């Protein structure tokens, strides 16, 4: 199995080698795989140093002059630290760009909170028009990066180390139906799919898989829905996509369970697996959470 982060770097280098209109801007991170391309294309592959505000704005500046920027560092510094640069450099200027963040919510578990970005998707969700890729496999990383660079819109690719066993085609705005059942519908986003499949084994649920989550494929959710019960499982802040489920089912009385990274700071180190377990996102935690939800029913308010 390929490493997702290294796959991103190799794909990005291929794209700058092939296309003179593509620029790659980074801030030290992943430089071990980008230095050679930087020597070949010193004007288009640029390490800005440890300067993330500048990173985002330089990407926007490339776009203002008609080029297609790939902008890369850890998600925590790309989206959270430099959020206003993203908001004004890309949205307010109304130019396109491809942001590729690495690390997600738990990859740097031993590094602690400073390098974790469970809020990246929720933050970008405050801005209109971003296509958000949440690849759950290295092959999906490659597909997403190629698709994103080929387009001209605003795209965020959330690269993480955790992978599912199998990859699915990347079709922005379209979810995959992985399993059909007569009961609830579980939406698994990116790298949580394997744990969701394991947790729901032997239960009669439908499983949708989203390797792109914005636009949110509400039509797929409606089309597969049997019982009016939905479980969201997201590898970032719990509830990030809840409003989109509510929008999709605005005329359908339904119950929703939103699982994901908790809002409370964990203050633990250890492994990514330990962090996922702490947030109830390993198979056992999901089995418990989904089981409790499905065992309960609607209660009358008050």
């Amino acid at each position, binding site marked *: 199995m390929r490493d997702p982060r290294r796959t991103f770097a190799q794909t990005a280098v291929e794209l700058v080698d092939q296309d003179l209109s593509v620029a790659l801007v980074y801030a030290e991170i992943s430089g071990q795989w980008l230095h050679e391309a930087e020597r070949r294309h010193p*004007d288009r592959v640029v390490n800005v*140093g440890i300067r993330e505000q*500048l990173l985002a*704005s*330089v990407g926007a500046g490339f776009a*203002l002059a008609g080029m297609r920027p790939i902008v890369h560092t850890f998600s925590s510094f790309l989206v959270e630290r430099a959020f206003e640069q993203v908001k*004004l450099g890309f949205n307010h200027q109304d130019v396109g760009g491809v942001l590729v963040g690495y690390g997600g919510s738990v990859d740097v578990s031993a590094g602690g909170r400073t390098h974790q970005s469970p809020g990246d998707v929720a933050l970008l969700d405050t801005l209109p028009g971003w296509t958000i890729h949440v690849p759950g496999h290295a092959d999906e990383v490659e597909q997403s990066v190629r698709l994103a660079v080929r387009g001209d819109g605003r795209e965020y690719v959330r690269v993480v180390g955790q992978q599912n066993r199998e990859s699915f085609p990347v079709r922005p705005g379209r979810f995959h139906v992985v399993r059909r059942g007569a009961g609830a519908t579980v939406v698994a986003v990116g790298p949580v799919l394997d744990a969701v499949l394991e947790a729901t084994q032997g239960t009669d649920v439908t499983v949708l898989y989203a390797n792109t989550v914005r636009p949110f494929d509400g039509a797929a959710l409606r089309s597969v829905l049997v019982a009016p019960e939905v479980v969201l499982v997201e590898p970032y802040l719990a509830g990030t996509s809840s409003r989109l489920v509510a929008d999709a089912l605005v005329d359908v009385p339904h119950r929703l369970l939103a699982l994901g990274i908790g809002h409370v700071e964990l203050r633990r180190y250890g492994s990514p697996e330990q962090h996922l377990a702490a947030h109830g996102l390993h198979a056992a935690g999901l089995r418990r959470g989904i089981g409790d939800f499905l065992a309960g029913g609607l209660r009358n308010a008050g």
Partner: protein
Amino acid sequence: MTTEHLTTHRAASSGYEDLPRLMSLMTGDEKHDAAATSTLDVVWVLYDRVLDVSPASIEDPGRDRFFLSKGHGPMAYYATLVAKGFFPEEWLPGWASYASPLGQHPDRNLVPGVEISSGSLGHGLPMGVGTALALRAQGLGSRVVVLVGDAELDEGSNAEAMALAGALRLDRLTVVVVDNASTSYHRPHVIAPRFALEGWRAAVVDGRNHDEIETALQQRRDGRPTVVVAEVEDR
């Protein structure tokens, strides 16, 4: 882009002497204090004598770019763009109203000839670094001139841009600092040396003297970005 307006309004014919009248259409005042006009002479000299850009070339990839990073107080900028024919004078009186494309901070998506949407400080120079890199990568001979205020340099993002532009020898990039000593912790004569330490060619000029401004802003391709500190009356 509102190209329709470009063809319908009268040809550019206004000069420097028309700028106070054009600004009065926005402010309602006959006279303007130094703060309102701090950028006036620099912006005028740029469009009148320095930049290779015109209403006919605002979509040309090879045009020179002017980034007004200090987006507040844009009256002198709007007046200059009108005088040079980028958009019609008739837009000025309604500025900052709901129906007007002219805001208290300019928006590149609403105003022909405006290159960046600005207002929040510290974004123009970092974006200018990216655009200057893109011009170099595309083999274009054009340049980027970014106008910042002296207090805007409080924003740390400028320090990031200053260091990288020097290191990458971005001689397509010029910064004009309009210095009216408005930063709260003002120390005289530090701006030019700060840039120079990072590898920039630095000049200090009288921000009201058109010939001095023009000479300092002439482009030189010697592997160094240029900063011109244009001193005007203290705020």
